[in-house]
């Protein structure tokens, strides 16, 4: 187990290096002259040169890449072209709302989707099953911002139950925080719930056909015990894997959800950075999100033994 963990941790290093290399080389492989694009249409040649120098585009690729990686390892992600603040500072200021939104969405989605999938598999072919599968197709088809606007229109504007937009920091109280995040979380969770429910159903269908389920039935175990103790436990590995992979959907969706609900998080920072063509900020956010994504999936991989003690490395 320990040897496996070490190997698995070491294996993420090349992946992260490739992510960094890729994010960095976008500046070089993008068609056209990125310095001119970032400078904008009204820029003077001096502006373009200044930006080219600040991005390091005037120096050799490998040297610049080495410097960049070295700086990141020392916690320096460069300086925003627009605000002149260090990118790390800007990220620190915006990280709380995004983490709140994603953690709440994750909890909400898992606690809704897993029971949905389990019940759909148990009642395979019934109207409940068809409703869950129908919901899953809808969840994949209706984009995040559409769900967001519909929810905000119904529950915030028409019924006036929840605030339309904005964010309240967690330290100002749990309920104001929750009130502001509940609609964004549901909107963001749509695709994620669809994904998890589908995989849960598929895995459960397979597990429910196993012999040990029949044995459990024969010895008189209750339906709930069979579903949630015997079956779900054995279906856990694929479900947990998909929960980890699906975090990519949450990250992409957060960018949009934060715009719809005016949440001042990292997604909003990304959108602002795009409108100002502030590439160092975009680079920093993309890199951060990708590393978090890789790390979460690494942790999930390492946690497999908790869910399934039969797995021995």
């Amino acid at each position: 187990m320990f040897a496996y963990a070490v190997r698995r941790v070491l294996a993420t290093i090349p992946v992260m290096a490739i992510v960094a290399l890729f994010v960095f080389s976008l500046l070089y492989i993008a068609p056209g002259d990125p310095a001119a694009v970032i400078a904008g249409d009204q820029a003077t040649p001096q502006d373009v040169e200044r930006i080219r120098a600040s991005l390091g585009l005037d120096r050799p690729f490998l040297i610049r890449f080495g410097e960049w990686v070295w700086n990141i390892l020392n916690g320096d992600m460069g300086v925003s072209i627009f605000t002149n603040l260090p990118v790390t500072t800007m990220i620190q200021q915006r990280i709380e709302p995004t983490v709140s939104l994603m953690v709440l969405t994750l909890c909400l989605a898992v606690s809704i989707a897993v029971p949905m999938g389990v019940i759909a598999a148990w009642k395979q072919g019934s109207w409940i099953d068809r409703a869950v599968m129908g919901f899953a197709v809808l969840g994949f088809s209706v984009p995040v911002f559409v769900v967001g606007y519909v929810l905000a229109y119904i529950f915030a504007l028409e019924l006036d139950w929840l605030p339309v937009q904005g964010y309240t920091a967690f330290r100002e109280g749990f309920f104001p925080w929750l009130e502001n995040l509940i609609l964004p979380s549901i909107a963001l969770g749509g695709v994620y719930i669809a994904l998890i429910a589908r995989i849960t159903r598929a895995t459960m269908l397979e597990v429910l056909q196993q012999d040990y389920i029949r044995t459990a039935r024969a010895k008189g175990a209750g339906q709930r015990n069979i579903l949630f103790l015997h079956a779900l436990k054995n279906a856990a590995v694929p479900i947990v894997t998909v929960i980890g992979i699906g975090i990519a959907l949450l990250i992409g969706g957060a960018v949009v959800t934060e715009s719809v609900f005016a949440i001042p998080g990292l997604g909003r920072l990304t959108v602002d950075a795009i409108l100002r063509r502030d590439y160092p900020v975009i680079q920093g956010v993309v890199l951060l999100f990708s590393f978090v994504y890789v790390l979460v999936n690494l942790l999930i991989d390492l946690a497999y033994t908790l869910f399934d003690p039969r797995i021995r490395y």
Partner: protein
Amino acid sequence: MSSAVLSSAPPQEVAAAPPMGDVLPPVKPKRGLIGFIRRNPTMAIGAFLLLLMVSIAVFAPLLWTVDPTALAPARRTREPSAMYWFGTDMLGRDVYSRVLYGARISLIVGFSVAFFASVIGLTIGLVSGYVRWADSIIMRIMDGMMSIPSILLAIALMALTRGSVQNVILAITIAEIPRVSRLVRGVVLSLREQPYVDAAVAAGSRTPRIILRHILPNTLAPITVQATYVCGAAMITEAILSFIGAGTPPIIPSWGNIMAEGRALWQVKPYIVFFPAVFLSITVLAINLLGDGLRDALDPRMAKRV
């Protein structure tokens, strides 16, 4: 067992199985369009809706639309009415015409990304799955690319290029390639263990011929299914990119752009956001239904699983 027993007639005491025709009446599958719809209802609904959207996009000029970019400050933000079916936006442009013309952008982006991502992903996947030494290099690169959430990757690319439909297609294609490549590689890895591939190797076929004649045709079914999902995802990504201001230029009426423009007014004039949102959702739904139907039809074993 001696040959005498084998050649002799079955003993009388063993009842011979009656001809199957007596037990099971022959099931004649219905032919023609009706039969197809009966057998594949999801695919039929998806295909019908998609066809509807494609016709709307193609025949937009004939469907009582006006110039979707014509400004008319005098008739700003009119509610939907007999005159302006979907109302007008904050610059007085007819939302109905804009939404219909917007179908063109979404469909062009969706289909182009599905096509290019499939072709490139197929090539990479075939090479990676069949050429051992290239596999580990290619797959490490794909792993790295897949670690960047695809919308963020598209956003980063768009931040470095000028907004245009071509660049949107390019950015989304690059973001979708790793997933397609991984899928094809997986299929190829299982196909190359098949006995008929061994037979081809034994018969002296060269590698390119084996890939083209024996491996490639068998990857087409899964890649067609995957292409439909890529198409739907690409349309959503295009709308998201345009919505946050990193997609098609604002002059072009795409669904994402119409929503981006309606965003400032959505609390008082929700219809500007509503109509493109409904059209986008229906189109993506149609493509996903088509994909689900195709998957069930092409791979009956998978049908019961996901």
